[in-house]
C-alpha cells in the first residue's frame, strides 16, 4: 500500500511538470490578454530540439537551451503575425500548432527509436535515501523543481511587483494603459516570448525526462490541457498547480487500472486523464462571476494605437 502511495505521488509530480511549465508560460501570455493556442506546437518543437541537441552534443544543458530557443522562435513568429501584423490570434495559434506538429515530425524523422542522454535525477546524500520522503521529495530531475519555483516566481511577479501590475493592467484595459504611456505591444511581445520559452522547456521535459525518447506527436495533447488549465484555474497560479497535480493523479490512475487488467477499453483509459481533468476543473470553476473577475478583460482582442 505504501508503495502505491509513493508511486502515486511520484507519478503526479512527474506528469504534472510539463503541464505546469507550459501552463505557467501561457498564464503570463493570457494575463497580457494574448491568447496563443500554439502551445502544443511549441512544446513539440521544444521536445525535438531538446532531444536532437542532447543526442548530437551529449549535453542535456545545451539541449534545454535549444528547447527554450525553439519555443521562443515559434512564439516570435506568432507575435509578429498577431501583434505587429494584427492577424487573428485564434487562427494563428491553431496554425502554429499544425506547423509545430509537422515540422517536428520532419526534423525528428531520423531520431525515432534512438537514445539520448536523460536529465539527471537529483541525488542529495542523506536526504534522497530517506524512506518515503526521499523518493517523494528529493529524487526528481531538476525541471520538476524548476517548474514549481518558476510558478512561485510568476505568482509573486504578478501579485507583488510593479512590472506585474503593468502586465495585468494591459490585459485589463489596453487603451487606458496606452494613454498612460505604456508600450502595450512591446510588453505583449515579451509575454508571448516568455510563454514560448516555457512551452519549449515543457517539451524538453517530455523528451528528456518524462519519456526520454522522441516519438512523433509525443506531446499527445498536453499543450491543450495546459491551455484548459489556465482557463479553468481562472488565471490564478495556485489553481494551476492543483489542476496539474490532478492530471498527474488521473494519469497514474489510468495506468494503474490498465495494469490490473480491468476489462475497460484501453482507448478510454488513455483518454481518462484528459477527460477527468477537464470535467473536475469545470466543476470547481463553475462560478462565472469569479471567472469574469479574473479573466483579462481584453483577452484575444487586438490592440492598435490610434491616438
Amino acid at each position, binding site marked *: 500500500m505504501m508503495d502505491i502511495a509513493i508511486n502515486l505521488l511520484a507519478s503526479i509530480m512527474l506528469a504534472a511538470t510539463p503541464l505546469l511549465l507550459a501552463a505557467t508560460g501561457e498564464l503570463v501570455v493570457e494575463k497580457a490578454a494574448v491568447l496563443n493556442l500554439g502551445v502544443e506546437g511549441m512544446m513539440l518543437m521544444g521536445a525535438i530540439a531538446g532531444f536532437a541537441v542532447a543526442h548530437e552534443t551529449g549535453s542535456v544543458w545545451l539541449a534545454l537551451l535549444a528547447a527554450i530557443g525553439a519555443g521562443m522562435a515559434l512564439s516570435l513568429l506568432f507575435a509578429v503575425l498577431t501583434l505587429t501584423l494584427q492577424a487573428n490570434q485564434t487562427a494563428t495559434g491553431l496554425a502554429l500548432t499544425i506547423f509545430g506538429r509537422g515540422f517536428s515530425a520532419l526534423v525528428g524523422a531520423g531520431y525515432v527509436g534512438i537514445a539520448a542522454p536523460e536529465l539527471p535525477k537529483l541525488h542529495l546524500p542523506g536526504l534522497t535515501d530517506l524512506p518515503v520522503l526521499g523518493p517523494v521529495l528529493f529524487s526528481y530531475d531538476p525541471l520538476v523543481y524548476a517548474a514549481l519555483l518558476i510558478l512561485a516566481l510568476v505568482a509573486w511577479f504578478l501579485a507583488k511587483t510593479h512590472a506585474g*501590475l503593468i502586465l495585468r493592467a494591459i490585459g485589463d484595459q489596453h487603451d487606458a494603459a496606452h494613454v*498612460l*504611456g505604456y508600450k502595450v505591444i512591446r510588453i505583449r511581445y515579451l509575454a508571448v516570448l516568455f510563454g514560448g520559452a516555457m512551452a519549449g522547456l515543457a517539451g524538453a521535459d517530455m523528451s528528456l525526462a518524462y519519456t526520454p525518447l522522441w516519438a512523433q506527436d509525443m506531446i499527445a495533447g498536453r499543450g491543450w490541457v495546459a491551455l484548459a488549465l489556465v482557463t479553468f484555474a481562472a488565471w490564478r497560479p495556485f489553481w494551476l498547480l492543483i489542476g496539474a497535480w490532478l492530471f498527474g493523479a488521473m494519469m497514474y490512475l489510468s495506468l494503474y487500472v490498465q495494469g490490473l487488467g480491468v476489462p475497460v477499453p484501453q482507448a478510454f483509459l488513455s483518454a481518462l486523464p484528459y477527460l477527468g481533468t477537464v470535467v473536475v476543473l469545470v466543476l470547481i470553476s463553475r462560478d462565472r462571476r469569479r471567472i469574469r473577475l479574473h479573466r483579462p*478583460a481584453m483577452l484575444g482582442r487586438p490592440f492598435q494605437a490610434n491616438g
Partner: protein
Amino acid sequence: MTQTPLLRLSGIVKQYPGCLANDHVDLTIAPNQIHALLGENGAGKSTLVKIIYGVIRPDAGETVWQGRRVVIQSPAHARRLGIGMVFQHFSLFEALTVADNIALGLNDAKDRVGLRQRIIDVSASYGLPVDPDRTVHDLSVGERQRIEIVRCLLQNPKLLIMDEPTSVLTPQEAETLFATLRRLAAEGCSILYISHKLDEVRALCEAATIMRLGRVVAQLTPRDKTARELASIMISAELKPAAERRPPPAAAAPRLVLNRLNLRATNPFGTSLQAITLSVAGGEIVGIAGIAGNGQGELMDALSGETLAGKPETILLDAVPAGHLGPKERRRLGGCFVPEERNGHGAVTTMSLAENAFLSGHLRGALARLGLIDRRRTQDYTARIIQRFDVRTTGPQATAKSLSGGNLQKFLVGREVMLDPAVLVISQPTWGVDAGAALAIHEAIVALAAAGAAVVIISQDLDEIFLLSDRIAVIAAGRLSEPVPVADATLERIGLLMGGVSPEPAHV
C-alpha cells in the same frame, strides 16, 4: 498679463485620413488660469489635448512650455513636465485596486514609496475622499473621477487637463468639483477645462478658446458673453428653437408595464436591477435619468429581451406578458428598441444600410417573402428612412460605418420610428450627435408619441430628459424612483435622486 505663459501652442496641425483634426491651432494658457476649450463634438478638442499630453504627435506646430520650446514625446514626458490629465472616458483599470491604478500613473519608483499614505493625505487635504484598497469596479463614476484627480495631484502638476469632467456627474458633484478646481488654480495649478456646457464655462473659467471644425474661431473671456452668444460662435448653423412642448396626454391605457422587475447582473462589473416598476401609457414619454453605470444597460437589455426577465408577467407589452420572450417576439408585439451603442449593437457596421434596415424591420415592415429577403421592398423601405430623416449618405447600399455618428443615429432611430411601434425604448438618443441631428431625432420621438406610442428615453443628458419627457424617473444603483411629472421635477431634486439620495417628500 505680462508674465510668461505656462503653455503656448502655435500652428498645431494634425491630419487624419479624410479629416483635418487640427488646422493651425493656437492656444495660450497663463499661470493660475482656468482656461476653457469649447467646441462641438468633432471640433478637434480631444485631438488637441492628446497632443498636449503626448499621446499623439502633431504633424506641425510649436509647443512652448514655461518659455522653453519642447517636443512632448509621451504621456510620461508630459507628466515629468508637470502636465496631468483626467480623461473623459476614464483611463482606469476596473479589476485593479485604487492604489494599483494610481501607481500605474506614477513612472518614478520613488514616487510610489509610501503611496497608500500619500493617497490618503492628498485626498483628505483636497476633500476628495478615496479608499486606496477598494477595487475600481465597485466605485461610482464620481469616485472614479476623484481617483484620476488624486493621481494627477500626487505629481504636483502645473497644468491639469480635464476632458468634459461634468458630463458624468450629478449637479451637486459638479459643484464640489468646481470648488476643488478653483482652489487648485489659486494654489498655482492652471487648468485646461474642456466642455460644451456653456453655463459651466461662464461660471468657472477666466479665458476660453473656441474651436470649430479643427480651427480656433475665437479667444475670449466667457463672462463677457451670454451662453447664447457663445453657442452661436461654437455651432456653425444657427440654432433652431427646440421641439414644441406638447400638452401632457390625457389618461390612456398603459402600453408598457414593468412589474417588480428583478434581474441579477451576470457581469461582475454590472448592476443588478431591483424591483423596477413602471407604467407608460400610449402617447406618453417617460424619461429615465441617471449617471452611467447605475443599471441603464441592464434595464435596456431587459426591456429589449436581450436578457430574459424570467417570469412572463414582469413585463407587459400592450397587456401581453412578455418577460420570457426574446427580442424577435417582443418586436412582433410592437416593441422597438434603439440601444446606446450604435456601432456593433445598433448597427452591423460592415453591412449596408438596407441590410441593417432588414435586420430589425423584416417582421413589422414585411420585408421578407417566403423566408427570403425581398430586396425591392427592403431597398424602398431604406430609401424612405433616408429621405424622411435626412440621412446624409450615398444611398441604401452605403455601409453603416461610412456614416458619421449623427447620421447613423438618425438612421437607426428612423428605422424604428418608421415601423410605427406600440412601444419605443431609446437609450441615449442623441449621444455624440450634433445639434441639427439631435433636433431631428427629438422631433421624430415627439411625433411618434403624439401618434399614440409609449416612449421610454434612457439618457444621461438632463436637458434632453427635461425637454422631451412627460414624466421623469431616476435610476440609481439598479433602483428606479417613482416617476414625477416634469412640471414638478426640479434639477435639484433629480440631481439628488441621481446621487442615490431620496428627497424629503414634497416640500416644494
